[in-house]
């Protein structure tokens, strides 16, 4: 038992190293006083970060990403709440069909969705590409994540609480507002955060659907072609990685706290 235990533990540690090592190079080189991302490390510096925050087009891209992320997160979650109630309670006809179409973005390669949106927006609806086109695509992309988080929460919910509220004379809407919504709030917050991260980090849809205003990943991708722009991009990449990581941890903690309150054995 002990031998095997050690072998698997060793494997797990090596796996984490493999998983994180390449990514950790970004922050590592971003503090290195060199224009190339190479060893040996020379000296510690903040100058790449200085170059990053004074870059106006980067700040514009950051603003675009924040707007797109926030709008898609709110829109996707707002659509997902009634949808997941319908799905979790089996209120909708053709339950499996609806679930399957909602989950489509998870299984269809994103390049397919990217060109599909390009066709419907530019060729058929003939609208100009803008931040809106990216936002619409991101709502589609975020919907499955949001529905999954909300559905798992709703399925763990004690229905008798809602029934009690109805028996005591509350309307359907009042029950939703005063009983259901507070109970699923951790999942709602978790969904908002996850959708925001998904949109904020998304590249392919944004790349195909951006007009003149790039989001941060699209801007970063464009800059990667110029070797001399590399260090500020390393700094930018590091900031994105760290912020996403913090948001993921936050969202996981909120979701698990909530789940622990509902069903202690599943925490």
């Amino acid at each position, binding site marked *: 038992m002990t031998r095997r235990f050690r072998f698997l533990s060793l494997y797990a540690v090596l796996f984490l190293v493999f998983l994180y090592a390449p990514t950790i190079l970004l922050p590592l080189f971003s503090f290195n006083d060199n224009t190339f991302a190479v060893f040996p490390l020379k000296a510690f510096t903040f100058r790449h970060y200085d170059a990053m925050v004074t870059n106006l087009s980067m700040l514009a891209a950051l603003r675009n990403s924040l707007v797109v992320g926030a709008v898609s997160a709110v829109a996707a979650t707002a659509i997902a709440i009634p949808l997941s109630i319908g799905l979790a309670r089996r209120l909708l006809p053709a339950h499996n069909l609806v679930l399957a179409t909602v989950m489509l973005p998870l299984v269809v390669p994103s390049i397919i*969705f990217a060109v*599909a949106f390009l066709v*419907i927006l530019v060729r058929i609806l003939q609208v100009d590409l803008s931040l809106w086109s990216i936002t619409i695509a991101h709502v589609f992309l975020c919907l499955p994540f949001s529905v999954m988080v909300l559905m798992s929460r709703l399925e763990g919910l004690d229905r008798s609480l809602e029934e009690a509220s109805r028996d005591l004379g509350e309307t359907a809407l009042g029950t939703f507002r005063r009983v259901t919504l507070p109970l699923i709030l951790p999942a709602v917050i978790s969904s908002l955060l996850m959708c925001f991260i998904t949109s904020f980090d998304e590249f392919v849809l944004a790349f195909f659907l951006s007009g003149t205003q790039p989001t941060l990943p699209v801007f970063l991708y464009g800059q990667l072609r110029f070797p001399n722009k590399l260090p500020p991009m390393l700094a930018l990449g590091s900031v994105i990685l760290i912020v996403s990581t913090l948001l993921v941890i936050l969202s996981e903690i909120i979701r698990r706290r909530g789940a622990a309150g509902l069903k202690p054995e599943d925490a």
Partner: protein
Amino acid sequence: MRARRTAGYGLVVVLVLILIAPLLALATLSFWTQTGFSIDTTPTLANYWSLIEPSQTPTVYFGIPFPLANPVPAILLLKSLVMSLTATVAVILVAYPMAYFLAFRVTKYKVVWLILITIPFWTSYLLRVFAWKIVLGFNGAINSGLISLGIIEKPLEFLLYNPVAVTLTLTHAWVTFAILPIYVSLEKIDRTLLEAATDLGDSRWARFRRITLPLSMPGVVAAALLVFIPTVGDYVTPTLVGGPGGTMIGNAIQTLFFKQDNAPLGAAVAIVMMLAIAALCLLFLRAIGYTRLRERST
């Protein structure tokens, strides 16, 4: 009551239509043709025909003859399928022991382990792939590290810009997607079955092979599909670390849409790619008898 049910059906129809509208538009475009700067909307199979139009002189790629007039999409599709399949197998091999570790060995701090596994899943795919470019590049971390250690004198050129680099990067980028489904199916295994096997004299290996592995197969299959399907059409990885030799079908679609300005043909290639993926997945599920597999493990 009937009115409510009709409203329910109406709602579902509208919802499903909105959700699949982009894909329907893509499919429609694939039956149109590009004529110069405008699009001819007469329905035709010309785009699909041009993908399989035979030619007398086959283009030979890796020893395989492609007797096609326009062989690039077919070659890239086959190449993408093979690369993606290799990455999927690698992902499963790397992910399984980790999922096993999480399900059977971790007792304390399980949440911490799970979060550590989940973080890369949510962080920027672009940045994770870009990190590999920094690792493998001509002026990259491996080359500069080995040079400064005095092991090599000039940079190794074979690291970046080839199918192997793409497959390696795909494996790394998608491995966390595979751990969770496998982990869930391992967690669900009734531990008394394992005890019974041991009591009845099975060795640990026999127990794994006869109980744990078969019962975790649904998770493995789900993980394999979850990785295989999106990676076939991946665009970021071949673009950043693939170079000219590592291009995949996703690059061909992008080129057709933007550089060659032939969106209808690009749409046809995209549709063919989706159909090829779907057909392969169905064949795979059929071959392993997936329905039986699921019944057994629930």
